[in-house]
């Protein structure tokens, strides 16, 4: 998709830091829960005390492989942890353990849609590393909490394939959706469990040489990713158009002012003195290890969307919405399977259920209405047991009481009246109460038929089977 940026083409690459949802840190057995007290989730290892050593967490490896496979990466049989040496108070050992020249995942790619157009972005690599601690700045001093130090991160690095701010945001959303599908990360940008750094440069359309890139850091929503990049593209083009050059630097985005500003320049670039960490042996995997994990991969969103369209007959838009979260897709599919009516299931889930869930900020997994119950409700409608209108009343009651639709209908007497004898009685009394309309109808003004239907439904409190009402009414009136 080409967007005209005043004759320039933006070139964007993104690094996403995914905090893996392990119970313990990547190199030690400290807990990883967010709500711990100051330095409560630390140990001599995570505080970098003398003589302590890292030992890799199996689960972190498994999650990295899982993610790599989902991103269509080649999983390396041998990867190596290196030390990235620099001094900063949030880095307890004076180095960060990170995979450098031999990462665990390489050469993948993902596909997604931007405004209906398919986009493919290559994944250069994904590597395991440890998170740093948290600094608390008061101005006068800085305080350190190492609860976060050592939480496993998978850094996913895209190729410089992204060409617009929209694409960048959509790329980020897709990565988030995938890691949530895999259940390896909760994908919360605000809490920092997913972090996006965007490398942005611009060049004249048709130019081959890449422009100087600027890194945008710590953007905490995909909406802001889009805005920050749009701002940055404009800023860089303005610079170039006014004859200035772009300086290589790291910038931050201020959402209140919708602008980016310099965080640090890269003039005195750090020398990280990477070397293989002698405390950790190379991470060696067998083909079996990898295959075993491949088998645990869930159906990924893009495949699910396709299948929902092709096999279940959903529109692209509906399929996209229903596959946005794995749990939602599973809820929908279970509903459809149980009642056999996928279209109705899709509608009920997207319209009624999502509305209630959103209103009350409840996640689908905590929905008071189960897929089985929703499927029963749809079957009751399809079987003519209740009308669509009554169904909405039943749905509301299901939401409140968590009861099955059948029991609600029985308890409240909401079942559809399909008993011909009963209906005839109601219809006869409606006809006898409205002699002038009966006369009108019989004189040829058949338009009043609708009036009778309404009156009968009203008299039956909406429970009359509308098809039967139509038939009996017509017969009675025409007989007259």
């Amino acid at each position, binding site marked *: 998709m080409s967007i005209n940026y005043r004759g320039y083409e933006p070139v964007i690459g993104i690094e996403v830091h995914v905090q893996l949802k392990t119970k313990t840190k990547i190199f030690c057995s*400290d807990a990883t829960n967010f709500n711990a*007290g*100051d*330095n*409560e989730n630390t*140990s001599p290892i995570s505080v970098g005390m003398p003589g302590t050593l890292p*030992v890799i967490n199996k689960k972190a490896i498994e999650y990295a492989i899982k993610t790599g496979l989902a991103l269509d990466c080649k999983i390396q049989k041998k990867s190596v942890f290196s030390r990235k040496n620099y001094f900063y108070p949030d880095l307890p050992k004076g180095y960060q353990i990170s995979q450098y020249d031999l990462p665990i995942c390489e050469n993948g790619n993902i596909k997604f849609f931007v405004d209906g157009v398919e986009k493919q972005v290559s994944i250069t690599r994904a590597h395991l590393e440890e998170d740093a601690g948290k600094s608390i700045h008061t*101005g006068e001093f800085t305080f350190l909490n190492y609860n976060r130090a050592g939480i496993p991160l998978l850094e996913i690095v895209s190729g410089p394939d992204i060409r617009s701010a929209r694409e960048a945001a959509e790329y980020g959303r897709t990565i988030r959706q995938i890691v949530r599908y895999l259940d390896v990360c909760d994908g919360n940008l605000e809490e920092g469990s997913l972090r996006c750094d965007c490398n942005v440069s611009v060049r004249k359309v048709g130019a081959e040489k890449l422009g100087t890139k600027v890194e945008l850091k710590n953007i905490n929503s995909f909406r802001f990713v889009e805005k920050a990049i749009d701002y940055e593209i404009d800023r860089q083009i303005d610079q170039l158009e006014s004859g200035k050059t772009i300086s290589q630097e790291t910038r931050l985005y201020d959402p209140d002012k919708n602008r980016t500003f310099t965080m640090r320049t890269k003039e005195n670039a750090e020398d990280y003195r990477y070397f*293989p960490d002698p405390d950790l*042996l190379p991470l060696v995997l067998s083909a079996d290890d990898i295959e075993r994990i491949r088998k645990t991969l869930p159906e990924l969103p893009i495949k699910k969307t396709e299948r929902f369209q092709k096999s279940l007959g959903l529109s692209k838009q509906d399929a996209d919405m229903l596959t946005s979260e794995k749990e939602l897709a599973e809820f929908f599919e279970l509903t459809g399977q149980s009642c056999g009516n996928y279209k109705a299931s899709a509608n009920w889930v997207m319209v009624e259920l999502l509305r209630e869930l959103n209103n009350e900020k409840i996640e689908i997994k905590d929905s008071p209405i189960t897929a089985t119950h929703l499927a029963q409700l749809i079957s009751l409608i399809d079987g003519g047991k209740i009308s669509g209108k009554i169904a909405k009343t039943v749905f509301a009651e299901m939401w409140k009481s968590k009861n099955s639709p059948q029991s609600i209908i029985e308890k409240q007497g909401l079942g559809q009246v399909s008993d011909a004898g009963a209906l005839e009685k109601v219809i006869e009394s409606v006809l006898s109460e409205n002699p002038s309309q009966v006369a009108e109808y019989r004189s040829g003004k058949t338009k009043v038929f609708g009036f009778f239907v309404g009156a009968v439904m009203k008299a039956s409190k909406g429970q009359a089977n509308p098809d039967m009402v139509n038939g009996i009414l017509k017969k009675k009136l025409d007989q007259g």
Partner: protein
Amino acid sequence: MIDQKTIEHIAKLAKLKINPSETEEYGRQLSKVLNHFEQIAKIDTTGIEPLVTPTDIDFFAREDLVANDYTAEQMVSNAPEKAGQLFKVPPVV
């Protein structure tokens, strides 16, 4: 030969304050040691993977199980300066 500027650069990277006489001394000694290393530079090592761990040891990974062996208080007890259970350093913004 390692000149003064290089020594100052290394000291900066290593975050070591060294005085002018140390700068001079280290420059001399480092040059000597590195000159000594020059004989190694002549060895043909084409295609040889650098060795880190010298013995054959099987890869080992641990289970994802929480251990709760230490209190925050223990972890900050050796700190030169602290505030509550946080470590305290100069302002770094």
